[in-house]
């Protein structure tokens, strides 16, 4: 853990961009078809629930990062094991997200460029940010937030003005009942992006004002949920359910559809800026969490020494974890949520909370 101090507003901004990060770009929860907004909504509620679990757990040890307090909760050996698992998880997800973004860029704009170069450049930027520390990332996030929101509003206005939106595509509501919606929630939208806020447990100790922190977290989750709902609804309203489900990047297609006055068209760059901003914050936070975990576990005082070697590791994981985009997506849809997200985002934190609750109650009784 480095010596740093971020305030609740910055936490809000980071969480917000983090949640939108990749979720904005992919066909999130499209298995629920036109009810995708419901799927995202329930995912958001689930995310809120997880946030409270994480927060409660954090408040037992307000100045400690998870790798530090799990040792106290589970004992030195098991604590270290759990901490190591989380470290690997964070770094793996950082690599996955990096791969996501690299693949997107290669697919839609840089066909001839090797994935390695695209990923390496992106990671170089992330490494530079993480090297500078969480305060700098948070400040950069504040500025990027303004840019992202300006882009979002501009994009929204352009889509509306060009008259593409037909909300009748969002009907009928609940065509097949709640089942497909809930299935989507429990296999996708709960974990990505909302469950991923588990990574913020590494950031919470830097925030001093815990009350404001709670508020910032709630608002960030709600606002990002609303933004995702609006985005996905617009995608469907513009493209229709079938087309949205068939495309890799529905938002890109929506932006492609904008045509105003023969001049404002082909606004791919909008999409690319949003993509890189979101990706930068998302990868940075996972990567940062990984680096800090390693430095805590291995007791390295100067975390900046770790940034470059771990960066290279993440880069290579991102390239080797799948041989093709199809394989990457298969892992992302069938393996990762079930065997990684569900246990690490939900089960372990709940378990730890129970342990912490019991231990601390015990303490209280003793002190009485």
């Amino acid at each position, binding site marked *: 853990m480095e010596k740093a101090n971020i*305030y609740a507003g910055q936490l809000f901004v980071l969480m917000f961009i983090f949640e939108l990060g990749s979720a904005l770009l992919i066909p999130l929860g499209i298995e629920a078809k036109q009810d995708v907004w419901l799927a995202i909504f329930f995912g958001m509620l689930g995310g809120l629930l997880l946030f409270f679990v994480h927060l409660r757990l954090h408040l037992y040890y307000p100045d400690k990062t998870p790798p530090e307090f799990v040792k106290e909760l589970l004992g030195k050996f098991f604590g270290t094991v759990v901490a190591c698992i989380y470290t690997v998880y964070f770094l793996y997800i950082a690599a996955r997200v990096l791969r996501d973004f690299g693949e997107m860029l290669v697919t839609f*704009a840089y066909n001839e460029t090797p994935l390695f170069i695209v990923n390496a*450049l992106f990671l170089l930027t992330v490494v*530079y940010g993480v090297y500078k520390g969480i305060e700098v990332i948070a400040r950069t*996030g504040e500025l990027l937030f303004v840019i992202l929101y300006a882009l979002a509003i501009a994009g929204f206005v352009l889509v509306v003005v060009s008259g593409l939106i037909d909300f009748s595509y969002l009907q009928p509501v609940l065509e097949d009942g709640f089942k497909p919606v809930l299935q989507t929630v429990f296999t996708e939208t709960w974990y990505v992006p909302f469950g991923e806020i588990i990574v913020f447990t590494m950031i919470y100790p830097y925030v001093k004002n815990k009350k404001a922190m709670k508020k910032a977290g709630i608002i960030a989750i709600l606002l990002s949920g609303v933004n995702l709902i609006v985005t996905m609804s617009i995608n469907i309203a513009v493209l229709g359910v079938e087309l949205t489900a068939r495309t890799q990047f529905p938002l890109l297609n929506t932006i492609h559809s904008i045509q105003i006055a023969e001049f404002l068209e*082909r606004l791919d760059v909008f999409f690319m800026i949003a993509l890189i901003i979101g990706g*930068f914050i998302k990868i940075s936070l996972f990567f940062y969490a990984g680096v800090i975990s390693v430095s805590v576990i291995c007791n390295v005082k100067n975390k900046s020494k770790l940034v470059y070697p771990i960066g290279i590791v993440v880069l290579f994981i991102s390239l080797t974890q799948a041989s093709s985009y199809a394989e990457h997506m298969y892992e992302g849809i069938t393996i990762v949520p079930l065997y990684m997200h569900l246990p690490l985002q939900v089960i372990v934190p709940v378990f730890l909370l129970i342990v912490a609750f019991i231990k601390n109650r015990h303490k209280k009784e003793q002190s009485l």
Partner: protein
Amino acid sequence: MTFKLRKLSKARTTSSKSNEDEGAKTEKNEPLSDSLAQNVEAVKQKTGNSADISIREITLNDQAHTKAAVVFVEGIVDQQAIDDFLIHSLINDDDLKKNPADNILETIAEKVVALGELTRVHNHSELFQALFNGETVVLIEGFSEGVSTDTKGGESRSVDEPPTEISLRGPREGFTESIRTNTSLVRRRIKNEKLWVKSITLGKVTNTDVEIMYIDGLAESDIVQEVENRLNRINTDSILESGYIEELIEDQTATTFPTIAHSERPDVVTGNLLEGKIAIFIDGTPFVLMVPAVFVQFFQSVDDYYSRFDIATSIRLLRIIIFITSLFAPAVYVAATTFHQEMIPTQLLIVLAAQREAAPLPAVVEAILMEIIFEVLREAGVRMPKAVGQTISIVGALVIGQAAVQAGIVSPAMVIVVAVTAIASFATPSYNIAIAARLIRFVNMIAAATFGFYGIILTFIVLLIHLCSLRSFGVPYMAPLAPFDASGAGDTIIRMPWWKVKKRPALTVDGNVMRQGDNQKPSPPTDRTMK
């Protein structure tokens, strides 16, 4: 070295330096002797008999025929004052004529000299310091100390309109090369005893006067302490301009962005002092440094504060757009024409393609070439005497604008892009941030040429990280935007009307944040006839 605290409210101050700091200069620090001849000889010898050292020997009293010498440096003293109030008095004073030799020094100090400040010098180091500060030293036979009077004067530039910061509406005064004139210009604007000035001498050879000025109670005391510490650290032979100090005290050296602001205008310095900032005056330059400096500060011009807030806000937004243009315009052109042809509207693309049809150079080479040519022209324009300056513009316009295009070496669109960038970089109010943008522009062009918009966006994010990681005397460079500070944000890329700006920026101000009372919004009576 330590600072001596002084109130400027006294009309004149001497820079009598304290003695402790002289340890370093032991070779000069020998005491004055009793013998006048020896002292005079020592002065002559040590200054190498310099032509501008003037030594006037006189006889003081009638009986004892006590000899004395008046020593000063020609050109930096007020010759008239020495003649009228010092030498004249010394020769003609009746008290002095009757005075016995033994307490003649006291008489001179207390009764004879009709000049403002008067100090004693005891050793050579003090003697020379006084001399080169424009003081006049009277050495008397039989005394191992001299009397030094303040006779600063001589030629210096008069207060004039500053050439680098023109304002349409506002005071026409600018700083001069004289530190005392400069501090007085600020003093006249803040008539308050809380305006404090601390002095220090820097430069082992040049012995330059440096003073820091701040408003006690507004400036954060930690920052004041930090400024003092950093100035005290300086151990160099010379300080010729504020740029020397700037480079020696800034927070981070590996950056093209200025983390210390400077100005030639007293009203700018005053405004900054009122926001809790600290001004550093350096003798010999009209540029005054101001710390801590934040990024947005470099986009603010004085006119913003003197014109209506709505106008000022729109002009500031324009400046931000200009700055971004000057950073990215050529890079975007390169990226759009070599990577992202899809984002150019079809008709425009056809025109561009027609222009580039016969172009011999790749777009990026063309862009870099033209930018370099422009920088050459600009540099030549700055250095050339005014009379030749016109030639430069003719050559620039004809050769670059006309001939290169007609010869088919560069495409007309590229010339337009370079011209827009050039004008944009001149429209940024602060030269040192505009020049930073120019340098980064080349990096952006290379990034654009290799990775198109991906490269530009990544360099942009790296640039943002870099800016966010900078600090100026502990204050984050991007404040009050990031970290966001509501009290300071009213005067950033927008300017709120004065009646809205209730608070001073909290990051630089020490606690005392309220700037004005409530209800400052003008509320004239509803009956506009005023009857």
